[in-house]
C-alpha cells in the first residue's frame, strides 16, 4: 500500500491509498505506530483516496488512537468518503475518534492551521 507522509509544523499528515484490507493493514499499522514511537503526537490520517476498509484496517485506526491518546497525543481522521464514513459510524468509531471533513478542519482540531 502507498503511504505518503508530510510534516506540517508539529503535525504529521499521513495520506493512504484506496484499499485498506487484511493485506495492507500490517504495513499501515507498523508505519503509524512507528511514527508515534518516533515522537509524533499530532497525527492526521488523510483518507481522501480511501474507498475500501475492512475490520483489519479499522483495527489499525483503533489501535493508533488508543496508543497516541495514552501518550497525550491526538489522532484526527479526515476526508472520509461517504461509504467509508458509513462503516466508521456502524462500528461506533465516530463516537470515540476525532473525524474531520477535510485536512484544514483536521489541522484546526489539532490547534494548527493550514499555511496561507
Amino acid at each position: 500500500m502507498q503511504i505518503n507522509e508530510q510534516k506540517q509544523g508539529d503535525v504529521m499528515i499521513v495520506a493512504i491509498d484506496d484499499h485498506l484490507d487484511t493485506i495492507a493493514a500490517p504495513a499501515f499499522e507498523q508505519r503509524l505506530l512507528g511514527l508515534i514511537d518516533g515522537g509524533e503526537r499530532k497525527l492526521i490520517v488523510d483518507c481522501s483516496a480511501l474507498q475500501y476498509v475492512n475490520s483489519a484496517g479499522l483495527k489499525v485506526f483503533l489501535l493508533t488512537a488508543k496508543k497516541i491518546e495514552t501518550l497525550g497525543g491526538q489522532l484526527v481522521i479526515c476526508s472520509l468518503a461517504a461509504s467509508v464514513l458509513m462503516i466508521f459510524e456502524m462500528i461506533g468509531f465516530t463516537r470515540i475518534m476525532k473525524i474531520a471533513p477535510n485536512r484544514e478542519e483536521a489541522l484546526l482540531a489539532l490547534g494548527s492551521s493550514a499555511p496561507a
Partner: protein
Amino acid sequence: MHEGSISIHVAADVREIERLNKLVRQFGELHDVPSRTLYAVNLALDELVTNVILYGFDVPEGRQVTVKIATAAGELVASVMDDGRAFNPLEVKAPDLNAPLERRDLGGLGVHLVRSLMDAVSYSRDDERNVLTVRKRIR
C-alpha cells in the same frame, strides 16, 4: 435485478479475497445488483471468508472456502462454506459501541460489520461443514 447464481472456490489464502471481490462485483454488475448492495456484500464476504482462512484451519495450505451467491425476488443470498473446525462467528461477543476509546476492544469488529451490513445472518453446521448464510434485501 436479474435472477442468477454463482459458485466461487477460493484457496485458503488472504490474497484470494481480492479475486473473490472482483468475481462478486462482476456477477453483481451482470445481474444489475445495485452498487451499494454489492459494496455491502463484498465487505461482508471479505470479513467472513478472511475469518475462515485465518482461523478455520490448522494448516490452510491446500484447503478452500466456497462462496455461493444467488439473486432472486428482491433479495441477494450469499453462503460461505468450509470444512474447517466448527465455528459459529455469530457467537462472537459484540463490541460495546458505547465504551470509551480506552476500553474499546479490538475484537469482534468484523462480525459486527457483517451483522450491521446484512438484513439476516444465520449459521449451521451441516455434514462437517460450516455454512454461514447472509441475506440482503434489494430495494
